[in-house]
């Protein structure tokens, strides 16, 4: 049996090949050429600087969300509510922008406050899921799922209610903010180096938090064995709450970037499903922070590359989602099979 890092990598690559195989079969079944589809996806994401910038635009929130989820996963929590935490980050950022819309503060300061506000918004929304879990006995999966729906409804309410465009409210969102409220973008490209830096800082922060600090060690203890961690003297529920707060803040930052650097307003689907996608990335990398960057980049590339499919091949762009889903399933399946084999070998 394959052991260690190298063995792991071999399994992941095997799963990757298998999932490409499955998607190829689906493509063949609908009469399309798999090679052409994959080539179009690749060109769609890495074919030009502009396209690669788009990949990075998707990569930034995905990486932030993944970073946050690594913290809650370390604490043994399934923070499905991360999607709503992204949304609340966006809402809070929008609120801060609106608050300072007519102020004389320098725009850079407003942007900073808006992003901090977004992080706070996400953290508070996560705290709600945490409180439900710790004091209400509501499983964080159910609590988070419920709060996701509430967050979506809240966005729609704000867009069509208090924050609606003058004249007629529309699904296209609130009135865009003035240009000076945008995080600075690269010339001719939609990517903000500031956003990219923030995302990379997020994952580096989480890596060191989990690998190098007593806080991270305690968090892992709580996640791996709540009872034993308590008996070892670790304040267990407090650590659960901390992990929710950190994850919420990072997810909130993702939402803030969506407003401050991508859409420049609040739109109904502001989170673009990055919360759920982040869950997949975290599962795929087996909760190891070191792999977050390449895998998140790969997922972002799939998302952006698949946009080309309807245009060039009349295929639906949800093919990227199928590929991602199948990939995660195969990796988890490989893990399960391996554990079963391991168990057999020992007994």
């Amino acid at each position, binding site marked *: 049996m394959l052991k260690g890092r190298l063995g792991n990598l071999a399994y992941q690559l095997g799963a990757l090949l298998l999932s490409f195989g499955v998607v190829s079969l689906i493509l063949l079944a609908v009469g399309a050429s798999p090679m052409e589809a994959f080539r179009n996806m690749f060109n769609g994401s890495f074919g030009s600087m502009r396209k690669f910038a788009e990949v990075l635009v998707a990569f930034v929130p995905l990486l932030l969300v993944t970073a946050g989820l690594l913290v809650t996963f370390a604490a043994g929590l399934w923070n499905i509510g991360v999607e709503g935490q992204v949304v609340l980050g966006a809402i809070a950022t929008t609120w801060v922008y609106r608050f300072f819309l007519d102020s004389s503060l320098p725009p850079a300061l407003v942007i900073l406050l808006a992003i901090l506000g977004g992080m706070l918004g996400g953290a508070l929304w996560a705290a709600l899921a945490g409180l439900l879990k710790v004091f209400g006995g509501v499983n964080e999966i159910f609590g988070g799922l419920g709060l996701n729906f509430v967050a979506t409804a809240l966005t729609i309410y704000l867009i069509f209610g208090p924050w609606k465009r003058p004249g007629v409210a529309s699904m296209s969102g609130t009135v865009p903010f003035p240009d000076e409220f945008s995080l600075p973008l690269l010339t001719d490209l939609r990517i903000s180096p500031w956003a990219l830096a923030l995302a990379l800082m997020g994952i580096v922060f989480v890596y060191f938090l989990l690998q190098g600090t007593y806080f991270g060690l305690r968090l892992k203890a709580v996640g791996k*064995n709540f009872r034993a961690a308590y*008996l*070892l003297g670790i304040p267990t529920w407090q650590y659960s709450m901390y992990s929710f707060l950190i994850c919420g803040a990072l997810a909130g930052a993702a939402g803030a970037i969506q407003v401050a650097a991508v859409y420049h307003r609040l739109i109904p689907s502001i989170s673009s499903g990055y919360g759920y996608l982040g869950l997949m990335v975290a599962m795929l990398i087996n909760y190891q922070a070191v792999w977050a960057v390449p895998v998140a980049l790969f997922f972002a590339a799939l998302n952006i590359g698949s946009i080309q499919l309807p245009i060039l091949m009349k295929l639906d762009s949800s093919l990227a989602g199928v590929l991602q889903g199948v990939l995660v399933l195969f990796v988890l399946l490989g893990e399960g099979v391996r554990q079963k084999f391991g168990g057999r070998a020992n007994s």
Partner: protein
Amino acid sequence: MNVELKNIHKHFGSVHANKGINLVIPSGSIQGILGENGAGKSTLMKILSGFIQADPGGEILLDGKPVVIHSPADAIHVGIGMLHQDPLDFPPMRVLDNFLLGQSGGLFPNRTAVARDFKRLAEQFDFSLDPDGYVDSLTVGERQQLEIIRLLWLGARVLILDEPTTGISASQKAKLFATLKKLAEQGMTVIFVSHKLEDVEHLCDKVAVLRAGELVGEAKPPYVTAKLVEMMFGKEITLGERQSAQQDEIVLALQNVSLEDVRLKIRNVSLDVRAGEVIGLAGMEGSGQDLFIRACAGLVRPVGGRILLKGRDLTGKSYHVFKRAGVNFLPAARLEEGLIPGLSLSDHFVLAEAPRGLFIDRQAGLQLAEERIKAFNIRGAPLSPVESLSGGNQQRAELALLQTPLSLVLLEHPTRGLDIESVIYIWSKLKERCRLKTAIIFISSDLEEILQYSDRVLVFFSGRVSPPLDAANTTVEQLGQLIGGKGWAEMGETHA
């Protein structure tokens, strides 16, 4: 139905839980199965009722015909039904629906016919069960009654009852015994598994005693209690030298403490524990000693009374407060509660030190682990995950997690499942603590261990607590009697 067990063996890994058991149980009789925890009673009954399979080579014969039982469904098919200690029913469902479960075949149950059968059976045994009530609302005794008529209705002709008198009231017990006698008269075979001598003596036509996986003997009425106790626990062995009880300051004081959980109630226990003293808690599992030790740790809140640690009232405070005041608790379930699978030995020692600061000092952590591994003779490396260690080494690792200094150490089954070398080593480490004025309270099902290492002993039986017995003047036999519920009348009551 005549039940015959021939040469039944069962290994769990290296543990030989049943060693060549031969037993004949004639039709129409009540057979008692007696033995302490871990004697192999449950294993044997699980084999008979299809929950586990015996090792190849053994045979089960019903009315002379060999049968193969692979599952509980097979067992009920050939007429063997088992009533578990915790009834295996479905609390959120109605009584009648529970009754229907396990019936084979038929997509749409005929509820009216079933309700009629249910009523007939319930009346026959004078059970008052409401078929439309919910199972949650039933007492343990009523759930047993439901389970008995369900098994009979499914066609059981051999009924196995595992510790059925735990958690039921005296009147329910009387009714249960009357029912079992009636069933035996009707030709049913009843197998009654218990550690309660009184119940077995009262009810059974014949008793088989198991010890350490072996059937050590059978007895018929009139029973001699002393003989049964001797068979259960083996001959008394000579005890090694013990330290005399020390008369130091009081570390832990329990004042009229009352405790409750779903199964039992403990009332008004008072006890003073002195520095350096060792108190052993004896009793069958689930008799209240686990509740008691967790209350001493602040893990269970007393419903009445006060708990003082070195004179400070800690009643109702959390374990973390107790821990800061110098109390450490080591649970029996090492990998479930004591240690954290996935973390290394080094991680554990670092966490137990409650380090301040932000960044982990790996070098210091490794050094600490090296020291502890050496001091506690643990076979493992600082970076070994705890789940990779053997049971004995996990236990040593747990001991190595104890803080210094401590006022009180609470241990659940500190040496269960360990080889003799580890047992001696662990107690030598604990006795070192005692010399440093740490008091120890521990639970063990090994009576010799209790008498060997304790200064005083508390015996638990169904929530009753004996006064502290001086271990030096107590014998294994006396303890065995008390554990089996005998001789409590002479003790005076609970006030310890």
